[in-house]
């Protein structure tokens, strides 16, 4: 199981690397227009913020390495982690179904898939979620006049 301590150290280290990468990208900004003669170049502010978050990330790593040795876990149980990950997967898949096949097919499968991901067994809940999905479709399409594609 992933402990909070390890998770935080990995995340902060990742942020430092990302800050370096984005800071390097910012070095490549090209200002072509002459419209604004503002005192600060375009790269200054993003690099300043990246610097701030990298320093904070460094402090967070130091905090977890030196002070915080508690054995806390990111997820309470492994099935919690599984449900979280599965529902994330379902949403990403549904996003692509919507893009490729349209809204109605997505709305039809999204509810049942996410309930399966959460391990729900009661049929009643499937029916309720389906009904609510239909209701959302009706409200947006007919009441608000939005084309959901």
């Amino acid at each position, binding site marked *: 199981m992933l402990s909070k301590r390890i998770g935080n150290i990995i995340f902060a280290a990742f942020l430092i690397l990302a800050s370096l990468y984005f800071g390097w990208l910012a070095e490549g900004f090209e200002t072509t227009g*002459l419209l604004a*003669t503002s005192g600060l170049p375009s790269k200054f502010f993003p690099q300043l913020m990246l610097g701030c978050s990298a320093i904070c990330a460094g402090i967070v790593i130091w905090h977890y390495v030196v002070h915080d040795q508690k054995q806390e876990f990111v997820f309470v149980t492994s099935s919690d982690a599984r449900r979280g990950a599965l529902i994330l997967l379902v949403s990403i898949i549904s996003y692509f179904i919507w893009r490729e096949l349209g809204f109605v097919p997505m709305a039809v499968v999204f509810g049942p898939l996410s309930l399966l991901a959460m391990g729900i067994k009661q049929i009643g809940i499937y029916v309720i979620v389906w009904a609510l999905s239909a209701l959302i479709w009706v409200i947006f399409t007919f009441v608000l006049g939005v084309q959901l594609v």
Partner: protein
Amino acid sequence: MKLLKLAAAGVAAFGFMAGAAFAEWPEKPITYVVSFKAGGNADIVARMNAEVLSENLGVPVNVVNKPGGAHIPATMSVVEAPADGYTVFNWSPPSFMIVPLTRDTPYKPLEDFVPLFAGISASNALYVRADSPYNTFEEFIEGAKANKLTIGVNNLGAPPNLSAVQLASEFGLEFKTIALKTVPATMAGLIGGQIDVAVGQVASIHAYKNGEVRPLIILDNARQGYMEKDLPGVRTVGEAYPGKEAGVWVHGGLAVKAGTPQEIVDKLLAASKPMGEEAFISRVPKSVGYNWVHGVDETTALIQSGIDLYSPILDGLGLLKK
């Protein structure tokens, strides 16, 4: 429900093949893409246009605002939609001229679009606070040569900013330019003392009847009839200093994607006719300029005149895309 839809799709497909194409258009809501924020002048007139189209076409016409990103995301959302008349575009000087002239854009306005009409328009004017030491344009030029004044514009790269840049280059001035987001905000910033001089529109004066601001000059070459309505007696740069350039060109209207069937273009043109009638024009807010041009060829010629006007200006300022 679904069966019905399927049947409708089938009929439509059949109709397409039989050549009686789009006799049914429009059969679903139309999306009217506006590249400005909700609530601004361009958005207001676009919403009024949408209402007229909706009334005459019998389907909802939904305005969708996609502001920012140098108008490119909004323009591209229309280019990427099918040319079926269900996505229409509110064209404007930035999206059709200034941006394509100054940077690489993934679209070409007159190749990717067919413009149908132009309505909203504007001319820029230079304003100062009532208590400003500059009473005439000449005094202002003297003052601006002596001190680096702060000039307010709505957005960097928008027509008022171009007017300011052109003013500076023609008269050899240097300004500190502050962008205040909208024209009314620029005028408010002038009253509040944040800036010394503001580039507003000729019609902006209607919000300040109590004399909080004074117009110095109209930032244009030749005098146009409609200027007299807003700023009677105020000279243009071309009148005050013959030979100095101060051209702007601000029009806006509706365009559809190139390749849209002629029947749809004709229906849209017919449905937009009332926008050129007095009943509609009288409802356009006083602080918004309006100049009606209708028809594909007429509007294309108008846009071409704008491109011809902006190209040398932008080139002179070193901004033209090479």
